[in-house]
């Protein structure tokens, strides 16, 4: 398989990755617009396995999205200019930086607290509830950031007229 074929594969995986990752976030906003502390009783354990699987999949989808995005930029020789926000790469570059911030937010802020909420790490109920508020705000922040990230990435390659 040549690098060109890999590029097409990367673009497809990039889009699928975003759909899985952000789809989870948007569904979350619609289902629970306002923060509600999770149920931590025995009945909630029924949903624990499904929740863990869902979280693992969208968490790793974010890495697929990041890696395939960086590959596509490298393949086109645009990686440095985009990250450095040079000339016409400002829109795309800003989108890339926001997306990278979102991956960092997911893995470095949300995930350490989510591990406690989901019971991977044993902790008192009060701590799990406190962590659930942090994961809510972290997740919702990523949802908000996805608006400009998606716009700038799409505008970067398809909306040249917007940015002269």
């Amino acid at each position, binding site marked *: 398989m040549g690098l060109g074929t890999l590029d097409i594969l990367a673009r497809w995986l990039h889009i699928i990755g975003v759909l899985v990752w952000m789809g989870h976030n948007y569904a979350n*906003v*619609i289902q629970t*617009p*306002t*923060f509600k502390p999770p149920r931590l009783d025995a009945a909630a354990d029924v949903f624990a396995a499904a929740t863990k699987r869902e979280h693992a999949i969208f968490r790793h989808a974010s890495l697929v999205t990041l890696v395939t995005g960086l590959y596509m930029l490298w393949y086109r020789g645009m990686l440095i200019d985009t990250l450095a*926000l040079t*000339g*016409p790469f*400002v*829109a795309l570059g*800003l989108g890339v930086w926001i997306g990278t911030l979102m991956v960092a937010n997911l893995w470095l802020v949300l995930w350490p607290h989510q591990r406690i909420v989901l019971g991977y790490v044993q902790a008192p109920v009060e701590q799990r509830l406190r962590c659930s508020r942090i994961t*809510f*705000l972290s997740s*919702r*922040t990523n*949802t*908000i*950031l*996805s*608006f*400009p990230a998606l*716009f*700038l990435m799409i*505008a970067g390659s398809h909306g040249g007229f*917007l*940015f*002269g």
Partner: protein
Amino acid sequence: MNLPHDSFAGTVVTGLVLTGVLFVVVRLLTNAG
């Protein structure tokens, strides 16, 4: 404390406003504004 994060409308409006602000910033940076 109520944050934009705590409602559907707050999330969407904040996302759109942020997009608009960055759109203007990018237009200025690329001298298209």
